[in-house]
C-alpha cells in the first residue's frame, strides 16, 4: 500500500528563529567528552591544553548539539528542532534525524556565551519508492561567541521515512 503524501509546508523555507543563548562551562565540556568516552585531554586537562596551539581547553566536535537542541519531547517551550518539526508540519511519527553536518570556524571555549540562530535552509518533497511524497527539511544553525566570531555551522536533515 502506498504511503500517504507528506503535509510538509514548502513555504516555510528561509524562516529564521529567534536566537538561542548558551553559556559554556568547563565542567560541562569535560562531562560531554566523558559521555562519549573521548580521552583527548584537550577537553579536560587545563595544563595540557594550555601547552597546545589551542592555548586552553576546547570543546569536542559534536559539542554544538548541546546548544542547538535535541529533539526533546514534552519540553515547553519546544526546543528548536522540535519547533521546526511543528512549523514545517513534519509528521512526528515518521520523522527521523537522517543526516547531520558540522562546519568549524573557531574553537568553542569555556566561558563562551554562544548565540545560535536557526534557519530553515531547505524544504523538499521527494518521492518514496512507492510513488508517495515524503518531506525533507534542512535546519541550519549558525553559532557565534560573545565577540561575534563565527564558531560553527550545523545542519540537521530531518526526513520522513
Amino acid at each position, binding site marked *: 500500500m502506498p504511503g500517504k503524501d507528506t503535509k510538509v509546508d514548502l513555504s516555510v523555507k528561509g524562516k529564521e528563529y529567534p536566537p538561542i543563548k548558551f553559556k559554556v562551562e568547563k565542567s560541562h565540556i569535560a562531562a560531554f567528552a566523558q559521555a562519549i*568516552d573521548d580521552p583527548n585531554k584537550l577537553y579536560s586537562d587545563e595544563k595540557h591544553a594550555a601547552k597546545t596551539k589551542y592555548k586552553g581547553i576546547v570543546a*569536542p566536535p*559534536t559539542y554544538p548539539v548541546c546548544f542547538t537542541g*535535541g529533539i526533546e519531547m514534552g519540553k515547553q517551550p519546544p526546543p528548536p528542532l522540535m519547533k521546526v518539526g511543528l512549523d514545517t508540519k513534519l509528521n512526528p511519527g515518521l520523522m527521523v534525524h*537522517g543526516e547531520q553536518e558540522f562546519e568549524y570556524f573557531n574553537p568553542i571555549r569555556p566561558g563562551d556565551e554562544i548565540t545560535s540562530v536557526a534557519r530553515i535552509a531547505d524544504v523538499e518533497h521527494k518521492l518514496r519508492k512507492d510513488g508517495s511524497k515524503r518531506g525533507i527539511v534542512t535546519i541550519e544553525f549558525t553559532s557565534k561567541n560573545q565577540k561575534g566570531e563565527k564558531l560553527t555551522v550545523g545542519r540537521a536533515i530531518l526526513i520522513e521515512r
Partner: protein
Amino acid sequence: MSSQVSFDKLQVGDSIPPLTKGPLTREWIKKYADASGDHNPIHIDDKFATSFGLPSVIAHGMLDMGFVAQHVANWAGLDGFLRKIKVRFGAIVKPGDTVTCKAKIKEKKVESGKKTVFLELWAENQKGEQVITGEAEVVF
C-alpha cells in the same frame, strides 16, 4: 591518541587506524542524554522505546556521530584541524552493540598553501552493519 600525521606521507586510498567503542550500555546512553540534554524517552525508557517498535532503548545518533568525530579528530591530532564532518545515520545502535569507526583517504588537495585531506568515513556494528556513513575534511 594525538598521532603525528604527516600530510605529505598520506596517500589516497590509505586507511586510518580504526577505533572500536563499546559495548554500549543503558547507563552510557543515559549519561549521554544527561550531558547532551536530549532526554527523548526512546533513549532512556525501554517500555516507551518498544512501544515505538524498537527492540529496546537506542543510542542517540549524535552519540554515534560523537564516536566518528572522536576517531577523525584524534587521528588528525594537534597538527590537523577538523574543518567539516557530515554523516548519514543508518542502522540503530542499542545496548550491547559495539561501534567500530573506520575511514580512508579519498582526496588530498593543496590550495594557496592550505593542505586539505578529504576522508570517507563509516562506522559499523559487531555484525558489520553500517550505522553511519559520511565524510570529513581535515586541514593540515
